[in-house]
């Protein structure tokens, strides 16, 4: 019933413009380094606030906007697009709509969304809404780009019977459609609806950005790469689909958990808390299914693409269980507003999502006829990023606990700022392995033997 992706299912006739895979893949890495740099400078400013002098463009708040928008749109967006160009033809047996449209989409995404978005927020034209900082002009282009992405990637699925849809396909369809729906809501409605109500809508979007855009696409990668690398079908198609539907049911209902103990009606808060709790259960189902599918491959298999997505799966479990706990009132009361939550979002975006994106890139790259691929560098990228994420998340979680204890003790506010400093230093240091890992990823995708050589050595061995 479901067409599990396999390595062989890529008829030459479908070789959709591999240029697009390469272009999005490389754009992903270059913009990843830029977005990470914004984050690193912002983190260093917490250690030395005078670091960048009085250059308004590099002021902390603006860098903070550019950092998160960059990770979400530039790095993850490009990496997911690269993956879609690889995966959609294989999943559907049909080419994507148009290579020309692909070039437009690439140009629009990178040169009409990311570049101007960054320039404008750094210049001080932005909106102060989390995960929605690019100003409305850029948002309009984002919506156009999302619609174009729907036109580009979805028709191949629809021209095929639904019974052929593999779970990755479901996630791709869901992600593209619901991001296009949720995005305008999150970016526009708070401009029109004030205060507390605006916050309710912002909360929806904060969680939809993660739940309807990042998570489904990352899961699409994971569900795709695991069977394609292990050459075994996924453990249970039923569990896959159960997980899918529960996710799309529960994720959007999480939003208000960002505003627990606020004036937003208790019914909404409790709904969100309940949904957050159930979501943890859903993720356990999804992850169990995924891990059962890779049993026998080891936690750290040789194939770096597979290794990345397995680790991503594990991060997904941890971050989701943590999320369910954080939504509980007793824990939320303590850790909300602290660095704990910053640790949580890095576990989600850098651990879960970025590992999936990197795994998807590595997987696609190995199969690209024209690309170079350096296995050792990719392997290094994995270990460096792993060490970095673990250090950062453990460190920020501890910082959050300390801050929370000081806030509740009634100590002077500055005590919590001073106490956070050593943790902030460690957080900045964790950027060293992380960025080294990103650079290794870049090296891995730009050096090494090209496909012909790889094919020959495989045959020889």
């Amino acid at each position, binding site marked *: 019933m479901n067409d599990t992706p396999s390595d062989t299912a890529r008829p030459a006739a479908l070789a959709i413009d591999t240029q697009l895979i390469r272009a999005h893949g490389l754009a992903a890495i270059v913009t990843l380094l830029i977005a990470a740099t914004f984050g690193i400078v912002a983190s260093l400013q917490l250690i030395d606030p005078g670091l960048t002098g*009085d250059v308004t463009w590099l002021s902390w708040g603006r860098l903070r906007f550019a950092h998160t928008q960059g990770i979400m749109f530039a790095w993850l967006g490009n990496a997911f697009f690269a993956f879609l160009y690889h995966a959609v033809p294989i999943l559907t047996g049909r080419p994507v709509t148009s290579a020309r449209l692909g070039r437009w989409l690439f140009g629009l995404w990178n040169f009409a969304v990311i570049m101007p978005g960054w320039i404008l927020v750094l210049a001080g*034209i932005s909106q102060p809404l989390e995960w929605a900082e690019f100003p409305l002009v850029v948002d309009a282009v984002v919506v156009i780009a999302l619609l174009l992405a729907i036109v580009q990637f979805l028709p191949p699925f*629809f021209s095929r019977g639904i019974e052929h849809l593999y779970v990755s396909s479901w996630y791709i369809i869901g992600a593209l459609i619901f991001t296009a729906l*949720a995005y305008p809501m999150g970016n526009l409605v708070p*401009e029109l609806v004030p205060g507390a109500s605006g*916050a309710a809508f912002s909360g*929806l979007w904060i969680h939809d950005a993660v739940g309807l855009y990042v998570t489904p696409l990352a899961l699409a990668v994971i569900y795709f790469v695991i069977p394609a690398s292990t050459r075994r079908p996924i453990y249970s198609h039923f569990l896959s689909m159960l997980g899918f539907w529960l996710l799309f049911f529960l994720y959007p209902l999480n*939003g208000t958990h960002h505003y627990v103990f606020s004036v937003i*009606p208790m019914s909404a808060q409790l709904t969100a808390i309940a949904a957050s709790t159930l979501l943890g259960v859903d993720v356990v189902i999804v992850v169990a299914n995924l891990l059962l599918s890779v049993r026998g491959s080891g936690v750290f298999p040789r194939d770096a693409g597979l290794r990345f997505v397995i680790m991503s799966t594990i991060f997904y479990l941890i971050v989701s269980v943590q999320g369910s706990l954080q939504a509980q009132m007793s824990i939320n009361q303590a850790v909300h507003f602290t660095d704990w939550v910053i640790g949580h979002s890095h576990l989600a975006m850098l651990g879960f999502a970025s590992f999936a994106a990197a795994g998807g890139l590595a997987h696609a790259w190995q199969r690209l006829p024209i690309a170079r691929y350096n296995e050792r560098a990719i392997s290094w990228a994995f270990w460096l990023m792993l060490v970095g994420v673990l250090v950062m998340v453990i460190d920020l979680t501890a910082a959050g606990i300390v801050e929370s204890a000081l806030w509740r003790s009634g100590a002077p506010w500055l005590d919590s700022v001073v106490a956070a400093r050593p943790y902030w230093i460690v957080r900045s240091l964790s950027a060293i392995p992380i960025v080294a890992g990103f650079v290794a990823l870049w090296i891995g995708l730009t050096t090494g033997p090209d496909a012909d050589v790889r094919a020959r050595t495989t045959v020889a061995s």
Partner: protein
Amino acid sequence: MAYLVASVAGVVFFAMSVVLLGVLPTRALNADMRAMGPAKLPTLTASEQRGRIVYAREGCAYCHTQQVRYVHADMARFGAPTLAWETQFDFPQMWGTRRIGPDLAREGGTRPDDWQFAHLYAPRTVVPLSVMPSYASLFDGAANQPTNDGRDLVAYLSTLGRARELAAPEGEARAREACHCPDDEMAQMAFEMKELNAHPARARRTGPVPALPSAGDRAAGLQLYANYCAGCHGATGAGDGPAAAGLRPRPSNLSAHRYATDRIAETLWNGVAGTSMPAWRDQPLDRIAALVAAVQSLGQNASVDEASRSGDDLGARVYAANCVQCHGERGAGDGFSAASLAIAPTNFLKQQPFQSVALRALTSGIDGTSMAPWTSRLSEADITAVVHYVRSLYTGDAKEGRR
């Protein structure tokens, strides 16, 4: 067909989330705001509105929340939990989800403008341990020369929490009644606060001062002084810290005063209302005691000060004729017009300026306060005499009133 079912299911899920967590709460909140908010709500002026945009674009909301939650730790530190109607004009909302700095929902009326300007211009001159970014670009090269953006931003800060303060106490009573929530513990928390703004740094004219542990640790106090006070009062206490230039009145020269212990304790606990001198009610009492010891040690440089000889007749007469309405008959700072002054006149029983400081106060006045220069009204001899007189009033740590 299957596609149709799936799409409908998906869209229904999404729509349900928007309805449950967006539309319905909005309706409930609108009803709340109508019922609980004051009939007429002051909107932001054009300048305040522009300041809001500066606040938005600089990402202040990513270090500062504007949302006091219904939890005790928040209320103890910041004040009454935020009600829906308070952010009724926030397009878009800036509630924030992270606190590196404190919540600002009740910032209006917490600190005077000169503190805000000095702090935005160069936060570490005012708060040496701060990590807040400097916003010098909102100034023309000095803390007391804000650009329009800088002025607008501080105007905006002064609006935070203002509507609620203005509406109180009738507003509180009305909201409580309209809330229909006598049994809802959480909702009731919004009305429990005696003061809407509980900020421990907000200066107040008077207030009970807790008893301090007797001997403060001077060495620890000097360290605290370097971390909290030196930015304004200067490393040696000479009132010449890096933030001092922008402040009106300027920070006191602590090394050229003698203060009674309880006077310092009172100043630290309550701040100096009307000036940038904050209160330090969030500091543990042993730290306050240590700071008191440190401040006293700064003023022990008595060798440079002329011993105060007892006031002569001329001094007493000049004082009685010119100074009593403010500084009070006995010099306790409690003259009949004292209460109407923004900044309280000096209490000479508890505070003894060095000769040079007192002389300068009379010849040049104290900028930023109602203490005007007296050179046009008093002769040099009068001034010298009255300076001696007011200095002779100091009783130190002895009981007030011993003369």
